[in-house]
């Protein structure tokens, strides 16, 4: 039953629907499974899909089909306005905060969190299985599975973190650098063989080590000799060209030896060499085994400094032991410090109790508090309390607010891709996150911090679909300058622009309209811009008339939407619709009858004529009529974002017409077309919401999305958007499964 107020709001549908639509979608007809008369009169959010589809159809003016009587522009506008009004009402009825199931930290968040908590770097990209994306983002809870292989990787990583974050007599924190034979530098007659450097006569092998500070260092190497004569093989250590100890190497191939000396070394680049000093060759010796003495080196390593154990930064922040305190007591005090940070919640006595019991069992009663803490760190890092972001279940009620620490966690991972820092934890503990002003203060603090670049690196690159740019392989013959490094520079340009709008709280429209760009020298070269002599690592260039403003002129996007050998106006058009306008088109049905023959067979045709073939067929036209003109307008850029030469461009017609008759020309024309289109605001708002929540949106979120769009129309700043998302019920509350008691 509708409330009387709602009934008043539900004004009658404009008669145009009946005039133009019901012939196919009413009065018993339901082409495309749409009975519009029923949807319009029923007016319930259960028909949400139909309402949303109607909105899209009207927006594109692609119904009624060509050849049928069509509404006038004024009628179209009235229909659109009415539909929008209805959707607003229905969306408010359907609104619900929604729920996200326990979310595993994704690989990025894992690495960032470990770095924040322990100052240890884990190379997740190479060590963990890659995350997949759901709903376009790697934050989506449902696809963040926990297969057995991953738990194994978590164990390996946790052990490494525990080891590296604590320096004691077991791990004095020496740097230990080992160079295998094949990577050793050689002097003289030295030849590389499987696993060794072979020294048949006087010669040297060595490597340059970068040492953090002066001190005692242990130099060790694996070696053996082909022994002959009255001496064993002898190797002399040479440091920066100065000779040091001579080491006897009596070992033989069947059992190679490890030899070491401890030397006082300086900080910085130190050249360590091993010189084979006692070559011996008696070809006439009666015993063939006594004729030739040669040396083989397997590896060379430097570790140290061995004269001091320096605590890690993580360790330095731990409570120090009190004189006479037992290992268990010290451990417990350390756990009280570490556990709430790692588990992102206040802890209970039982947490500390069970963990200290584990440490005692695993390490034994004689173990030090630090050795025990290592075991505890491993355990807390493979616990679901760390790996999963678990939020409490609404108790009885259909939806409840998150706890303060859960909210802090959501905020921190949204804006920083890492765990809350001490200030945010304090704000959660003292209740200041319960007030809008308290939340605003924290959000501004988080966004002012350089760590908020996470939003550009992880949200923007996924939204703009350039996250896998580095895996692209533009044809090296056509584009010899484009390799992995340049692709990285391209991505950085887009990240820098997005980050600037966040950090400097600029308008979201600047993404489309920025008049300058910040790039490095390689990309400037690629863009044929002159690199100023006094420029730093990156330089800010004004955008001249030849390039498009904003991201539409970024090589990252132009490359990501191209094939390896050529541009694809279809992909670019699809990208504009999907990414900038949140209006994806379905892909073509496979093996469409009458799809234009090979594009290659039409090499005499211009690209535009070629694409005209797409729109000759009504089955293709519905989508290609929308996509192709958008992509064609960007044809002044080649497949790696370079501006085509004047000659190339001369033959191109960059004028395009959209269904509905709007015309524009070139990339700049397209950019003008997009500026002020509320669909762009909807796109950034909805995508950011998906990223922040870790779930896809449904009609239950439509009211929030509409509100975000109208807020942005008043105040289109990036921070306003972020703040409104954090202030939403979807962000701050959790619905019970199946909507609670019902």
């Amino acid at each position, binding site marked *: 039953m509708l409330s009387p107020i709602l009934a008043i709001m539900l004004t009658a549908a404009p008669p145009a629907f009946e005039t133009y639509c019901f012939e196919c979608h009413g009065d018993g007809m339901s082409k495309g499974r749409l009975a519009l008369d029923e949807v319009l009169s029923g007016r319930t959010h259960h028909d949400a899909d139909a309402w949303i589809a109607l909105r899209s159809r009207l927006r594109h003016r692609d119904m009624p089909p060509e050849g049928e009587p069509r509404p006038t522009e004024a009628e179209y506008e009235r229909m659109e306005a009415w539909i929008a009004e209805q959707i607003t009402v229905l969306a408010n009825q359907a609104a619900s905060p929604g729920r996200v199931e326990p979310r595993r930290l994704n690989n990025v968040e894992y690495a960032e969190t470990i770095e924040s908590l322990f100052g240890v770097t884990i190379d997740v990209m190479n060590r963990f*299985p*890659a995350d997949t994306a759901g709903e376009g983002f790697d934050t989506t809870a449902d696809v963040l599975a926990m297969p*057995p292989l991953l738990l194994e990787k978590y*164990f390996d990583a946790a052990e490494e973190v525990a080891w590296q974050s604590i320096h004691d007599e077991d791990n004095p924190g020496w740097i230990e650098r080992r160079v295998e034979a094949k990577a050793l530098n050689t002097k003289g007659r030295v030849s590389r063989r499987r696993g060794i450097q072979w020294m048949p006569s006087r010669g040297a092998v060595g490597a340059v080590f970068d040492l953090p500070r002066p001190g005692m260092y242990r130099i060790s190497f694996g070696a053996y000799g082909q022994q002959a004569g009255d001496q064993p093989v002898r190797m002399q250590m040479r440091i920066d060209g100065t000779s040091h100890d001579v080491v006897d190497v009596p070992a033989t191939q069947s059992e190679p030896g490890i030899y070491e000396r401890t030397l006082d070394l300086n900080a910085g680049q130190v050249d360590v060499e091993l010189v084979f000093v006692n070559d011996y060759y008696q070809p006439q010796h009666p015993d063939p085994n006594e004729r030739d003495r040669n040396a083989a080196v397997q590896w060379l390593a430097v570790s140290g400094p061995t004269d001091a154990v320096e605590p890690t930064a993580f360790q330095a922040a731990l409570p120090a032991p009190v004189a006479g305190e037992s290992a268990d007591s010290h451990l417990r005090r350390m756990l009280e410090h570490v556990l709430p940070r790692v588990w992102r919640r206040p802890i209970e006595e039982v947490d500390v109790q069970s963990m200290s019991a584990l440490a005692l069992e695993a390490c034994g009663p004689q173990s030090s508090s630090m050795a025990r803490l290592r075991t505890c760190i491993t355990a807390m890092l493979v616990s679901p309390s760390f*790996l999963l972001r678990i939020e409490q279940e609404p108790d009885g009620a259909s939806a409840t607010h998150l706890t303060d620490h859960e909210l802090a966690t959501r905020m921190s991972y949204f804006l920083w891709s890492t765990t809350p820092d001490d200030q945010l934890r304090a704000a959660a503990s003292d209740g200041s996150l319960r007030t809008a002003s308290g939340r605003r203060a924290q959000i501004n603090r988080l966004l002012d911090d350089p760590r908020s670049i996470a939003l550009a690196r992880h949200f923007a690159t996924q939204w703009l679909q350039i996250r896998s740019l580095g895996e692209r392989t533009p044809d090296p013959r056509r584009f010899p300058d484009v390799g992995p490094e340049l692709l990285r520079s391209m991505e950085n340009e887009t990240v820098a622009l997005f980050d600037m709008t966040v950090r400097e709280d600029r308008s979201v429209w600047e993404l489309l309209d920025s008049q300058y760009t910040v790039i490095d020298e390689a990309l400037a070269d690629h863009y044929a811009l002159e690199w100023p002599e006094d420029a730093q690592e990156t330089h800010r260039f004004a955008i001249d008339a030849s390039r498009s403003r904003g991201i539409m002129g970024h090589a990252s996007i132009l490359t990501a939407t191209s094939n390896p050998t050529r541009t694809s106006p279809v992909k670019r058009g699809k990208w504009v619709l999907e990414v900038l306008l949140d209006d994806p088109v379905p892909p073509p049905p496979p093996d469409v009858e009458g799809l234009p023959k*090979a594009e290659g067979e039409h090499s005499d045709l211009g690209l535009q004529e070629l694409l005209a073939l797409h729109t000759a067929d009504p089955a293709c036209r519905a989508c290609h009529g929308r996509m192709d003109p958008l992509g064609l307008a960007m044809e002044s850029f080649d497949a790696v974002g370079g501006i085509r030469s004047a000659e190339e461009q001369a033959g191109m017609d960059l004028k395009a017409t959209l269904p509905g008759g709007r015309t524009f020309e070139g990339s700049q024309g397209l950019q003008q077309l997009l500026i002020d289109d509320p669909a762009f605001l909807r796109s950034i708002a909805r995508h950011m919401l998906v990223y922040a929540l870790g779930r896809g949106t449904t009609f239950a979120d439509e009211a929030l999305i509409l509100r975000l769009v109208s807020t942005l129309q008043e105040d289109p700043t990036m921070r306003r958007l972020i703040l409104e998302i954090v202030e939403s019920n979807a962000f701050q509350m959790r619905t019970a499964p199946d909507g609670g008691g019902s």
Partner: protein
Amino acid sequence: MSDFSVSRRTMLRGMGTAMALPWLESMAGSQVATSSALAAAPGGPPTRLAFLFVPNGVHAPHWRPSGTGSDWVPSPLLEPLQQVRQHVSVLSGLAHHNAKALGDGPGDHARSAACFLTGAHPYKTAGTDISVGVSADQIAARHLEGQTRFASLELGCEGGRQSGDCDSGYACAYSTNISWHSSRTPNAKETNPRLLFERLFEVGPGRETMAARAERMRTRKSILDYVRSDARRLDAQLGRGDRQRLEEYFESVRQLEQRIELVETMEQDPSQLTSFERPEGVPGDFREHLDLMSELMVLAFKLDMTRVSSFMWSNEGSNRSYPFLDVPEGHHQLSHHKGDVNMIEKIRRIDQFHVERFARFVERLAAEPEGDGTLLDNSMIVFGSAIGDGNRHNHDDLPILLAGGGGGTLQPGRHIAYEPNTPLCNLYTSLLDRMDVPIDDFGDSTGRLANL
């Protein structure tokens, strides 16, 4: 079974030798008695099962050989099979009904990968409630659990995809995995040969002594005990909607515990078992990457570390370029050639390359002696795609090759033409029989494939 037969575990403990051992005749009596008439003779070496997956289908007109039985004449794409033809059967006419749209619209790439080993129709979603089915390799793995150190190994040459949905509204998990542990948990695949090596041989990134490793494993076990009891406490506080992820976690904990127990029986450094050099990382060249991963699979089979493996050569829909074949264009892009002769020629090179690499893998297995025959004689290697023709996205007439002797239960070397639309799942039930896995039906199977 003879009273004198010893279980592998007993023997390994008693003799102080390594868990990772090539299959040995002396243990023959300890093999589980077989119930199926089809399964390998009791007492023989174990049967291994592997699935190799290639994306984007093939150029079908160049695939199907002429003639059937052992006199088949290779098609252009199957030409590289010539040297190993006695070891390989070409199976034509097989289909995956559940990879079809069935009302779900576009998304054939995602569906085909998701269906390839599960035989199930994936639930269409961009990332909410993903669900397909348990894959055939995992059914075998679960049955064999505890007999080898790894119930199964999942390999790949491409990681997950990082942006966008992967295919027309399907979550990327569907296109980047073929092995599904449960209907909602894909098995992550190892793509880095160095990490795979370290995992196989239980060696850490540094140099660790056997004693240190044993100590580390003991601590792990205590931690797993702790974590399980701690997580139970957590579980008691969780809402009913939140249990699934935690159950998945418990299942992983259980598997890891089992692995550690098996590892504890190792008293010899497994890294000494092979002269295989530890790989450095992911090679830039696809050929090297593929060969290295394949070699590690051969090693894992040979040392009986696992009997079940799957290997996704590329993710479904992959747009990988093949510069070493003079193909700078992307694979997926080329597969939609729309009749373009140049593009078809390049697709031919890619397809042929895949078949040639498959032939090489078969040769490697054939070069490893085992029992009275070779490792290949005791293997069943399925190679294929769940898209027939890459340009058409059909899911019938799939390109499927089957290599190996299946412990004497297969007669390779033939082209076997099945009735059109015979379920590919009938092959899987037939192979699971030969692994001695009790199963009535699987996916859309309608029975067994005759005449394998």
